Each structure stands twice: as structure tokens, then as C-alpha cells.
């Protein structure tokens, strides 16, 4: 995964997240597309890229959300690092293992996020273990779908290009 693709993934995630934020239903579902993108990138690249993507994505998300810049950044930095390290150590294939990685990463992200608020003595946002679990499941489902799409899109693009080339050759004949 090259830098352009990573940047694209994060940008798409942020745009979609902003779009989703306007829909109260999905916002209530707690889907964090930036987190999903960070986990997906970290799984595919490793801890270094994972933590950098997490830091950048988290801080941009913080800035866009109007909160304190850095809280989400730190949590996603750590998530990117941990997931990247996990992805280097273990080969994660199959939908269920990937779903579990997204689920765990989402829960850890929530705990880190609220933990930082607690440690820094800042006013806590609404906190609920049930909500955290719900968000984790939602992020897991979306994450698995995201990876599936990411893995299939390049192949589809290649296939389309091959078809396009083939048609042009046939047309010239």
C-alpha cells in the first residue's frame, strides 16, 4: 500500500465520516470510519505507518469534531501501532479474525479515549460500556466490509482496464 493510497483511504474515511455524521441514525450507531481506516491500513502495512496514519487521522478527526485536538489522535496512534504490530506478528486472514481485530481495536480505542479524559482531568463525555460494545460491533462489521471492498476494488479496476483494452483492440481489427 503506497502513500497515495493511504492518503486516499484516510481522506475518504474522513469525508464519509462527515457525511455520516449528518445522519443521526448512523451517528448513533457510533461508526468510526477513521478508526476503521486506521485499523485497515495498520493491518496491511505495520506499526510505523499504522501509528502515523492513526496520529494524522485522529488529529484531523479531533479538529473536525471541534473537540480537543490530540485526544483522539493519541488513542488512534496507539491503535495504529498495536494493530500494526499485531498484523506483523500474525497473519490475519478470513472475515471472522478481521472482524475480531476491528472489534478489539474499537473497544481499546474507546477505553483509551475515555481514559485520556480521565487522566487529564477533563470533563468526561457520555460513557457507557453498552454503547462502547455496540460501537465496536458496528465498527467490526463496517471494517470487514471496508477491507473486502479495498481488496476487491483494485482487481475490479484491473479487470475493467483489461476489458477496455480488449475492446479497443477488437475495434481496431
Amino acid at each position: 500500500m503506497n502513500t497515495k493510497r493511504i492518503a486516499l483511504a484516510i481522506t475518504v474515511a474522513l469525508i464519509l465520516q462527515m457525511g455520516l455524521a449528518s445522519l443521526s441514525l448512523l451517528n448513533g450507531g457510533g461508526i468510526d470510519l477513521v478508526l476503521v481506516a486506521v485499523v485497515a491500513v495498520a493491518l496491511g502495512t505495520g506499526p510505523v505507518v499504522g501509528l502515523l496514519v492513526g496520529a494524522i487521522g485522529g488529529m484531523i478527526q479531533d479538529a473536525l469534531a471541534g473537540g480537543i485536538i490530540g485526544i483522539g489522535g493519541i488513542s488512534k496512534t496507539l491503535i495504529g501501532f498495536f494493530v500494526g504490530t499485531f498484523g506483523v506478528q500474525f497473519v490475519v486472514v478470513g472475515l471472522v479474525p478481521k472482524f475480531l481485530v476491528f472489534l478489539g481495536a474499537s473497544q481499546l480505542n474507546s477505553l483509551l479515549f475515555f481514559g485520556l479524559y480521565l487522566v487529564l482531568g477533563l470533563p468526561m463525555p457520555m460513557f457507557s460500556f453498552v454503547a462502547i460494545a455496540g460501537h465496536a460491533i458496528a465498527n467490526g462489521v463496517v471494517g470487514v466490509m471496508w477491507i473486502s471492498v479495498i481488496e476487491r476494488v483494485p482487481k475490479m479496476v484491473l479487470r475493467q482496464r483489461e476489458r477496455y483494452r480488449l475492446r479497443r483492440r477488437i475495434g481496431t481489427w
Partner: protein
Amino acid sequence: MIDIRRRTGYLLATVIVVQILLISVQVNSSSGAPLIQTVTFGLFSRVQIGLSDGLTGLRDVWTGYFALQDVSKDNVRLRQEIASLKLRLQEQGAMVRRNESLRDLLAMDRSVDLSTVAAEVIAGDVTPWFRTLTIGRGAADGIQLDSAVIAPDGVVGRVVGQPAQGAAKVQLIIDRNAAIGGMVERTRVGGIVNGVEGNPPLTMNYVSNLSDVQVGDRIVTSSIEGIYPKGFLIGYIERVQRGPNLYQEIQVRPTVDFNALEHVLVVMELPRMQEFGQSSQ
């Protein structure tokens, strides 16, 4: 050129620190001060506390060990001074007690119409079988065999054996071989007081079962043996029991504390000599 891919830990730490700095710029701590200031102060104060503790520990080590060489000498000197002062105190206490003892002896000497010589007890028992002591007066001071020895508290014993020039051996009345004529002061009932192995260490024998003797009665010398002057206190009756034969069994507690004797008076004239002198006159 450092490859950050091999320095993931440093990169992570850098990114985290940068974000913490970013957070601290935005928010204040609960005390109102900027968070970065609070965190920095907290961290540095910990360092300061640690440094201060370390320096205090070093100072304690210095003052507690290395700088204590003079204190150690002072300590030794002070201990010697204390020991010397304690010794001096004991000496002074002994002098006070000796003074009191001599004063009692002097008072007794004045109250007794007898020719006496004051003597210091210089040694105690040398064997466990005899109850004797040695006094620092002897033949040179006019001490004779059988001279009676008394103390302010009562009768002590008599001189046994030929006295040396400067010392004499005294048989205590509590010795098993000692016997002294005694009588109950209240009723004038007479008997013989002997030393025994036991507690109390004296018994009064040959007192009839019919005689009036009670616990607590004072036993004084009767002078029937011709050694001890009459009327000197021997002890108190501690137990009285009717005997199986003709005589009562009487146990007597001596009034003299034989373990604490320091000075005694030696009677220079024997009663029988007095009587002999009076009769010859």
C-alpha cells in the same frame, strides 16, 4: 540517516509527546494553570523531590557516619565521665551510709553503760557451714575471746578463737553451734536461744509449755551464759507451738540483718567479769 522503521518505539513516543503538548496548549488543569505547566511542574517536582531525597540521604550518610568521628571520641569520653561520676556517686552514697551507721553506733555507745570498742566488719563467712564474720579489731585493741559483739539493732555474736592483733573472728548467734541465754521481755520467761538451719534461723528452747509466750514477744539477752550483757535485743518470736514434751517450740526472728552489717560494737568487759569485779569490791 536514521531509519524510523527500525525505531518504532521512538517514533511512537515522539508522536505521543507531540500530541500531549498539543493537548496541553488547548486545555487548563483543574487548578487553572495550563496543563503543560502542571504536567511539567509535576514531572520536575518529582525529579526535584528525588534529587532532594538523594542529597538528604548523602548528607545523612556524611553527618551520620563520616562526620561522626569526633562524636565517637566525645562519646567515649562522656561514657568514661559518666562511669567516673557513677563511681563517685556510689562512693558518696557509701560514705553517707557509713556515716549513718557510725552515727547509730555512736548513739548506741553513748546510751550503753558499757566499755565498748567500735569495729568494722572486714570479712564475711569463708565457709558455708559456719556463720561467722571477721572484724577489724583484735588483741591490740583489747578484744578477748568470748567478747560480746552487738549492733544498734541487737546482739550479733561473740568473739571465737584467739583474736589476732588487728582482727577477730565473730561467731554469729545464728550459727548452729551458737547458744545464748534469752528471755521473753514481757514475761521474763527464760530459755536458750540457738542457731538453726531454717527460716527463721533461731529457736528458743527449754521454755515450759505452761509459760506465757506469744508471737511478737521480744526476746532479750538474759546473760545466764556470762558472755552477753543483759537486756540486749535478740529478736522477736515469730511462731510458737506447744511441744510434745515439756517445752514449747519457739521460732525467733533476729533483729539484726546479718547480711548488712558494716560496723559493730565489741563489749570489752564480760558480764561475769563485771559481776566478779563487783563481788570482789
